[in-house]
């Protein structure tokens, strides 16, 4: 099964590259993130996350615009997560984006559900968000992320062990009457350092602008550090 997942990703990625080589927008870069989660006495959780996106290459016609190391976005977010059952939770989040002078705010509501299987776990995340950017109409989005969490040593991840997460997330958006679709395909190699700490290396491949002028693909090399207490 692992082989078929890898094949699926490779086919997807190569398809993406063949498309961008023509007239589509493509850029790639570095995407570090840090997340901190505090479990409260009542079983609920508080999460803080910082994500930073730096563009390294853009498929611009202008030679001097191609290679760079340019700040693209920094996102700050905070969530309060209510435990509904041991396997599901509801969360509310606040989000602030710093991006080249057009900073924006976002409200997030989500429901997450965990399915446990013998050798892996599947996480479902349903999210609604509303983004407010000055001088723009509010953007409404509906997202669903399906993530498969596969231990690489044994049937469960124990401290010191590695795991793989494969996820796909279609995002439907509506802004000023215009409908948009984006997909995020992420392949992660993670390591549970201890019961508190995790490190994850990911390839995050985003495609959007299917219906608009300018089909766009973005490929990110991610590195994430997560701390729980």
């Amino acid at each position, binding site marked *: 099964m692992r082989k078929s997942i890898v094949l699926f990703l490779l086919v997807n990625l190569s398809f993406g590259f063949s498309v961008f080589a023509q007239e589509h927008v493509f850029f790639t870069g570095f995407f570090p993130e840090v997340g901190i989660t505090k479990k409260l006495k009542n079983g609920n959780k508080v999460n803080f996350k910082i994500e930073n996106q730096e563009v390294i290459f853009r498929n611009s016609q202008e030679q001097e615009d191609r290679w760079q190391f340019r700040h693209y976005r920094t996102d700050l977010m905070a969530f309060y997560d209510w435990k509904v059952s041991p396997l599901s939770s509801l969360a509310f989040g606040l989000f602030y984006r710093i991006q080249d002078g057009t900073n924006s705010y976002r409200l997030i509501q989500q429901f997450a559900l965990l399915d446990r299987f013998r050798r892996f776990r599947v996480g479902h995340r349903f999210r609604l968000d509303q983004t407010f950017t000055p001088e723009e109409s509010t953007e409404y989005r509906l997202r669903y992320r399906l993530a498969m969490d596969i231990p690489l040593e044994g049937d469960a991840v124990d401290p010191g*062990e590695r795991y793989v*997460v494969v996820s796909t997330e279609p995002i439907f958006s509506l802004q000023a009457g215009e409908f948009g679709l984006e997909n995020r395909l992420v392949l992660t190699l993670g390591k549970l350092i201890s019961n508190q700490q995790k490190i994850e290396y990911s390839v995050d491949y985003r495609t959007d602008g299917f219906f608009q002028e300018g089909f766009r693909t973005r490929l990110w090399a991610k590195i994430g550090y997560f701390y729980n207490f």
Partner: protein
Amino acid sequence: MRKLFLLFLILFYAGNAFAQKKVEQERRIKKQELPESAVDWLHDAFDGKKKVRWYLENSDKGTSYEAKFIWKNKFHSVEFDASGKIQDVEVELTLQELDAVVVKNLQKYFSESYRDYKIQRIQIQYTGEEEDLEDFFDDEKKDGITVRYEIEYLGKPKDGEQLLWEGLFDDQGKLISKREVEIRIMDNLIF
């Protein structure tokens, strides 16, 4: 006085066992890393083609080996101790496959103890001496075999929050003990 002390001691440990959380650490190993007796027993009791995954498990009960495989369309897990001696065989079943008496008693326990419950997984567990277990799986001889049920379920008590439990029930479906199952951190699947 001594009896009272003993009673307290038993109650203390029993309470402890009740509150115990499941802590296990396992990793996959190769057949070559196992005690030969474990491989031999499995070969004798389940004689036929099967794809076995072997694990080394460290838990609060000590070190053990576990074989996991599908046999006659059912998921089996067989546990051996550190020396390779058979401990138990667990077979995954559905509620419909259990005896009517067992189902009745289980349903009675769940509906009396919880406002709401959901069974996640049922395993029938066979324990006994090496030869008896082998005879049971080879020739279906039931002598010397103890049957129990290990059931993982979500249970919401009449007062309190819903938790994930692993309950051990006797061959009639009556509760022997239970422990809370801890869910591994899932932040990366939530946020």
